[in-house]
């Protein structure tokens, strides 16, 4: 998730499922724009933007599969995920095959 606003011991963050308040006690205050790994409402790690976006892409792909998107071009989405030359954060779960 991306930090929008750091508060006393929490931060308002934006992620795949919308905005959430996350406990940042264990990673300390973070400036807006920082990417964090959120686990059950607590920030576990500060992530590099590239790593954060690859994780977000992977989870978006899982969510699309979980939702039973039969029109999804899984191979293309997977290839995107693994292509080191591709800028991360670009996985579009609405993209369809064919």
């Amino acid at each position: 998730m991306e930090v929008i606003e750091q508060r006393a011991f929490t931060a308002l963050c934006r992620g795949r499922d919308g905005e959430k308040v996350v406990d940042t006690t264990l990673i300390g205050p973070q400036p807006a724009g920082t990417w964090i790994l959120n686990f059950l409402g607590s920030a576990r790690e500060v992530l590099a933007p590239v790593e954060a976006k690859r994780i977000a892409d992977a989870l978006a792909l899982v969510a699309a599969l979980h939702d039973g998107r039969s029109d999804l071009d899984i191979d293309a989405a997977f290839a995107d995920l693994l292509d080191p030359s591709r800028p991360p954060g670009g996985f579009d779960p609405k993209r369809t095959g064919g």
Partner: protein
Amino acid sequence: MAEAGVEGRLLIDLGWRRGRVTGVSVHSTRPLNMPRMFCGKKPAEVTVALPLIYSVCGVAQGCAAAEALEQALGMPVSPAVRHRRRLLIAFETLKEHLWQIELKWTRFLDRAPDRRGITQLFSLMQDFRAAHFPAGRLFAAEDSNVQATPVQFADRLDDLERYLDSRIFSQPRQSWLEICDWQSLSKWSRRCATVAQQMLFQVENRGQAGLGRTRIAALGALDVKYLNRRLAGAGADRFIAQPDWQDAPAETSAFTRHCDHPLLLSLAKEWGNGLLTRAAARLVELALLTDELRNGIVDPGTSDSLESGPCVGPGIGISQVEAARGRLVHRAELAAGRVANYQILAPTEWNFHPKGVLAGSLLGLAAGNTADLQQRAELLINAIDPCVGYQLRIGVSESNGEPGRE
């Protein structure tokens, strides 16, 4: 409590009647067939994508994937590579234990957490990984030459050890590990100088040492042929969702890994697998893993000669990794160089089985009111530690013991 994302969650319903839990229902919405998305993919692709999806325990998942796929490919791997993976998993497990102590224990004690240890450990783990797996991948096929010097990490490990001795053990770990009975542990915790001492003291002082004690087998060694039979058979999906061993649920955790440690034997004799024993098991593992890291980093002492993993059949690989929350099993089946089937059996499915250790711990739990029950139940759930969020619901019933909803 937690919202459900794509990772699913556990729904834990308690039926509460006349001050006692008379019914427990544990239901998981985890998407356990998710690994099937890897069908048709190349092994190297799986080892890249899988840790992205399971990012919280990504090292254990990545190592389990690498070992299962190497076996399936018939690819020999050196003991040195296996050893380095084992050390990385030890780092990750230490991180999980510290995280539990600083987040959950401090919250229980209403104390401020201290992030210095986690920050130190995380930085050391990242640098260790960068030095020993320069390509960033855990898969042997992508491994390259090791560049680390033992001293570089030994010095930093000294700093971490000093921190743990001061923040957790209140004395050198080696002498703490000599505590071998619960009375001596009780004497140690009464000093209340560290967060760990305060936690154990509070648990005992509140009369919660045996909270949640239940009879359940510790998961024993699993033969790969047995695992292959269960995971390849018609009942594989059910086995992954609700695993059993010797026809019954079993527990896999830091406690079961170290249940023959003298201190834990003494605690189990007095308090069973209750809350005090579980908290102490976390500390025992924290101390032992720190020693393992020291020994492993300073004196790797493993050969670079190649060895093959256990063979269960052509194109099939099964790995077993002791992750922070318990044993993690991966099974990979390859055809024409691509994944034909991929399965993951995770510790949460053993421990949060509908008739597993959590359900047994909660059944019969006594509490004066629903707020008290909620606090006790959450202590037990956090001690057994699922890898996903959960929702706890208490149904008050005057008629029967079936869990209802509040």
